[in-house]
């Protein structure tokens, strides 16, 4: 379901947006801080440890949307599915997180000219890991085709 080009972007420094919704229907937005693609339909998303609303929404298998956008080309995909668990970050997660942050700071500095230490003020207090079962993938690149489903392909 997750095509190689989508996986490559997910695991690169990119914009990661995470959407969730409470049982009462209140949507919540936060950022992702790195992704590991675990398989064709599973990813591990790093989230801010103090994103309490998001974490509460995702506990117990809440619905999740994950949008990845290339900072330069704006090529975007949105993955939708369900959280299958939130766990403490492992040493491997922290290595991925550090690489993700460093890459994002470098690219954003190159694009925007803003000092890296200013952009670094976005960095969260800590991270946790959320495993996501991916059920659908959508083309989210700005334009008239934004929102078109690319996986699973309709049979």
């Amino acid at each position, binding site marked *: 379901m997750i095509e190689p080009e989508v996986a490559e972007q997910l695991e690169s420094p990119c914009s990661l947006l995470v959407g969730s919704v409470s049982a009462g229907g*209140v*949507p919540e*937005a936060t950022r992702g801080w790195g992704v590991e693609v675990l398989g064709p339909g599973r990813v591990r998303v790093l989230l801010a440890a103090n994103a309490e609303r998001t974490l509460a929404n995702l506990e117990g298998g809440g*619905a999740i949307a994950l949008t990845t956008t290339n900072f330069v080309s704006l090529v975007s995909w949105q993955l939708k599915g369900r959280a299958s668990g939130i766990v403490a970050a492992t040493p491997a997660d922290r290595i991925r997180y550090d690489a993700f942050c460093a890459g994002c700071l470098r690219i954003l500095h190159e694009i925007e000219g803003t000092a890296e230490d200013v952009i*670094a003020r976005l960095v969260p207090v800590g991270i946790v890991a959320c495993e996501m079962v991916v059920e659908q993938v959508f083309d989210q690149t700005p334009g*008239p085709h934004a929102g078109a489903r690319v996986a699973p392909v309709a049979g």
Partner: protein
Amino acid sequence: MAPDRGGLRLGDIAACFEGIVPAEIATASADGVPNVTHLSRVHMLDDERVALTNQFFSKTTRNLAENPLACVVVIDPTNYDSYRLLVQYERTERRGPLFERLRRDIDAIAALTGMEGVFKLRSADIYRVLELELVVAQAHVAAGT
């Protein structure tokens, strides 16, 4: 839902609405499926309301027809502080002074990003801000704020 802005006013974070750093918006369908995407700009109308431009974020639009709540995160380009807004859809404008002002803004963004012919304003959606809060990051903890 009573407004809860934690002592913050939209005017306090006016820099977030200059369109320099893209914002994000999460919505949810009636059956609880979230959607999250970027916004090129959030416009502050007054201390109670913001406007979002609708070019082609069709899923967002469909969700808001079912569930009028949205979560918007904006960034202050001067210090990269993030702010979370919980907003509630109020109305849509497809003509008039506000629409024309936002259309000119969208046209300018399109020209700057090479998206002429792709970014085209369909409507200006007005939202009431229910909650406004700083997104606490490592920098705030380190500074003891």
